[in-house]
């Protein structure tokens, strides 16, 4: 993207420049972890975290439209961008002065009931504090919404990573009319040339009748609707880096590995000077390879694989295997991590200016669930995966899975895409296997058992979108509420913008401990469509568009 003309836009009333496809968040400040807003209940500073448009860390207002993800939005010339939900500025916290009123946390379930005469006043204040951005202004909406992109193909492929691209190439070679739909603008370097559409598929409903085509609905950022009709579908959306529960895990500077990559302006410009990498597997190795000279230490909740040991020793980065992360401190940005070695229990601190979470890759399974495909709990990975045949057929005829969402491990992604393509060409499947949820415990459950035994006090944020405290989950459990579905409704955990991606996987493990059951018994979190918040305007336009004609 070098050499692209610079574009002028405005941020908080000041002129800025950006070039190429650099998203707003990466062009806002030199350290790229700008504090952009405050959280809703505890007005904690919020900064980019996930880097892939899922979390609540980077919401800004662009030209009168609220809740724009700065990590995804590429500014256009003349854009007016400002921060929201932070008064007088995101870095300056006036609301903190009121904190002493709520030593145990802001109890929206039982609090604010007395005196009854104040009900209206409480409601006005709380209503104003809740909500993210201000309502859209007329300029914020394109009226009418832009016409949607409508395509009709033989095979729709969701996800253009190595697995989706490999599946597409193979199917194309066999004469199928394919379309890869992927959120990123550019194909991976050296990828075979296949038809691509930039967009996010957010809704894949079950077919109305077995012979009918699938309809893939979604949007191309920021607000253009997408509707792709396909006889068969390969779902290969990959995964994302999971979060980890510890005190202060929402401090600015704490990033997922996805976030670190997204906010870096190239390998020599990571969004930190000295980061602690959390994790000891392939993903941690990737982070080390990319940003090695800026990594201060590697801290792993579980064991550390030889590959990480090798890279770290070359870079002379110290390793802390089997270590509990207890607490992050630092005001505007994380400065220090409090750790406890497992077993021995000795506590120690490490200084840093960022923490990169790379300990756990989680599959993106929403579309399988929406389409009615069965999923099963895999204890080893600590996540749900679709039930599949060996050639990637799901339990829904015509729907195939590939890549890490299908459980492929790194290095096997392209091969898993080819297997799915071959399965599709042979019309293999559907899978009939009963979901075989494994009863074993995941290793992370053991991690949390140790971490939470003798957990020091303080505000542990279990859900950063909704500011839900771990204390609240424990209290709900003590009050007799059981199962993830009920705990979610009782506490609000998982009901925010990330749709539970960053809080529910850990909440499930914690609940398994509290309830003395396996995570699979605590429940599957029904993931309601759309898979990613989808603009009303994009959906409205699809709804109005005449039936599509022709192929891509």
């Amino acid at each position: 993207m070098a050499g692209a003309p610079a574009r002028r836009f405005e941020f908080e009333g000041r002129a800025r420049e950006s070039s190429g496809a650099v998203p707003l968040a990466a062009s806002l400040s030199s350290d790229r972890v700008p504090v952009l807003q405050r959280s809703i209940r505890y007005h904690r500073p919020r900064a980019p975290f996930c880097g892939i448009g899922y979390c609540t860390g980077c919401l800004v207002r662009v030209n009168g439209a609220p809740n724009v993800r700065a990590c995804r939005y590429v500014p256009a010339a003349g854009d007016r961008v400002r921060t929201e939900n932070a008064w007088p500025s995101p870095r300056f916290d006036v609301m903190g002065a009121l904190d002493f009123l709520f030593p145990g946390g802001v109890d929206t379930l039982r609090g604010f009931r007395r005196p009854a005469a104040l009900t209206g006043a409480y409601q006005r204040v709380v209503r104003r504090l809740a909500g993210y951005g201000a309502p859209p202004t007329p300029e914020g909406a394109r009226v009418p919404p832009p016409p949607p992109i409508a395509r009709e193909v033989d095979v729709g492929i969701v996800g253009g990573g190595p697995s989706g691209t490999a599946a597409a190439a193979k199917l194309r070679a066999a004469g199928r009319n394919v379309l890869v739909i992927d959120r990123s603008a550019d194909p991976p370097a050296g990828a075979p040339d296949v038809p691509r559409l930039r967009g996010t598929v957010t809704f894949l409903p079950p077919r109305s009748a077995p012979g009918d085509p699938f309809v893939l609905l979604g949007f191309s950022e920021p607000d253009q609707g997408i509707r792709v009709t396909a006889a068969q579908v390969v779902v290969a959306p990959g995964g994302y880096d999971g979060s980890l529960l510890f005190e202060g895990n929402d401090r600015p500077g704490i990033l997922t590995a996805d976030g670190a990559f997204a906010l870096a302006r190239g390998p020599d410009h990571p969004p930190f000077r000295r980061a602690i990498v959390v994790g000891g597997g392939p993903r941690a190795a990737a982070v080390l390879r990319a940003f090695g000279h800026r990594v201060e230490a590697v801290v792993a909740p579980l064991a550390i694989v030889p590959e990480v040991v090798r890279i770290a020793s070359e870079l002379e980065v110290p390793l802390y295997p089997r270590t509990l992360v207890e607490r992050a401190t630092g005001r505007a940005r994380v400065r220090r991590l409090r750790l406890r070695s497992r077993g021995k229990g000795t506590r120690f601190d490490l200084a840093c200016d960022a923490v990169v979470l790379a300990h756990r890759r989680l599959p993106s399974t929403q579309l399988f669930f929406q389409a009615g495909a069965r999923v099963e709990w895999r204890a080893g990975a600590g996540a749900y995966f679709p039930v599949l045949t060996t050639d990637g057929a799901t339990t829904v005829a015509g729907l195939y899975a590939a890549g890490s969402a299908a459980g492929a491990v790194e290095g096997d992604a392209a091969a898993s895409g080819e297997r799915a393509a071959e399965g599709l060409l042979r019309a293999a499947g559907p899978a009939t296997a009963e979901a075989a949820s494994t009863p074993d415990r995941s290793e992370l459950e053991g991690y949390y058992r140790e971490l939470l035994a003798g957990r020091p006090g303080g505000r542990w944020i279990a859900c950063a979108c909704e500011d839900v405290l771990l204390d609240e989950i424990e209290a709900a459990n003590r009050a007799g509420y059981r199962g993830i579905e009920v705990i979610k409704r009782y506490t609000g955990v998982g009901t925010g913008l990330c749709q539970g991606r960053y809080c529910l996987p850990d909440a499930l493990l914690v609940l398994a401990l509290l309830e003395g059951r396996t995570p699979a018994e605590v429940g599957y979190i029904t993931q309601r469509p759309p898979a990613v918040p989808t603009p009303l305007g994009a959906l409205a336009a699809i709804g109005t568009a005449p039936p599509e004609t022709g192929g891509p």
Partner: protein
Amino acid sequence: MSAPSRSRYRVVVVGAGVIGLYTAHHLAAAGAGPILVVDRGFLSSGASGRNGGGVRQQWETRATVRLARESVAAYRRFGRDFGYNLWFRQGGYLFLAENDRELARLRAVHDLVRSEGLPSEILDPARVAGLVPGIAAGAAVGGTYLASDGVLYPFPAIWGLYEDVRARGVEVALGLEVLGVDARDGRVAAVRTSRGRIETEIVVNAAGGWSADLAQRAGLPSPNTATRHEILATEPMKPFLDPMVVRVSDGLYFSQTMRGEIVGGVTGTNGTGVEGGMPTSPRFLLGMARALVRLVPRLAPLGVLRAWSGFYDDTPDGFPVIGEDPRRPGFVHANGFGGHGFMLAPAASRRVARAAMGETVDLDPATFSPARFLSSERPPSVERLQLG
């Protein structure tokens, strides 16, 4: 999960939704004896955990206006009585008319509501625009508005009732399904459940969308039908909209929660019967987005956060079914609440409890009793304002 501790109860309430739990509360408060509430799902898995939280007193019949008005008073006291904050925000209900015929219908509602002492108002387009910022020009010729209507959070009502009844000694068994109802000498004698038989004198059918199914399991055909209704929520934003807005022509309804989300749907049904489960359909998601963006174009950039669906339990005349089934003494109905069971629950369930105890109830039997469906006479009135 929580298994029943006894083999015999005075009352078994089937359904731990707002109707079943509220009924159990009134029964326990009246000292009805050992009470068991059963539900095959988790707490709030039925319509009580899937609705829009709208509470209105604008109706087409006096009978419904009165039940709703009494319920509004109860919900205002809920925080004091049950310890949970419903965030019952009385921002009004605004019905929109697109033409004079619809406005004439609303005028009749307005006259009735006023005659019941509630200060409903007729609004001109300018006042409508003042209440719905950004509404498209010419979208309404007018509307009716009652400021004391509003929206609440359904979940805390369930938590408050659940804790209240348990504190009163009521047992709540979740994950337990009623498979059949046994009779002896024509009277209710026991329920057969997924975990064995439980003796009881009284069964309360508070099974929501599954009420006809439960009645059938008791050998009592019911005219109720389950219809699936879909609903969505957007990303939260700062306060934008005060009232619940309902459009008469197509049943589009939406409001803004305390949290800031726009929550709404289109009242038209998305299918009949409980067999298909509770999916979200593209027809709804796209159609709802289109309707909303046409009415309030500036909402276009707002993201839809989630969509879901649930069952209404509809009756032929639009009134709920409250009272003992004349065909089976001991079998008491508390169902048929359509899309309005939450807003009628406090008042209706008080009568259900009285009926279950064999006491007289101040409801017109021709309007509410299950017996009305057994005679061939035409219903004396029909509640048609089944919107929002």
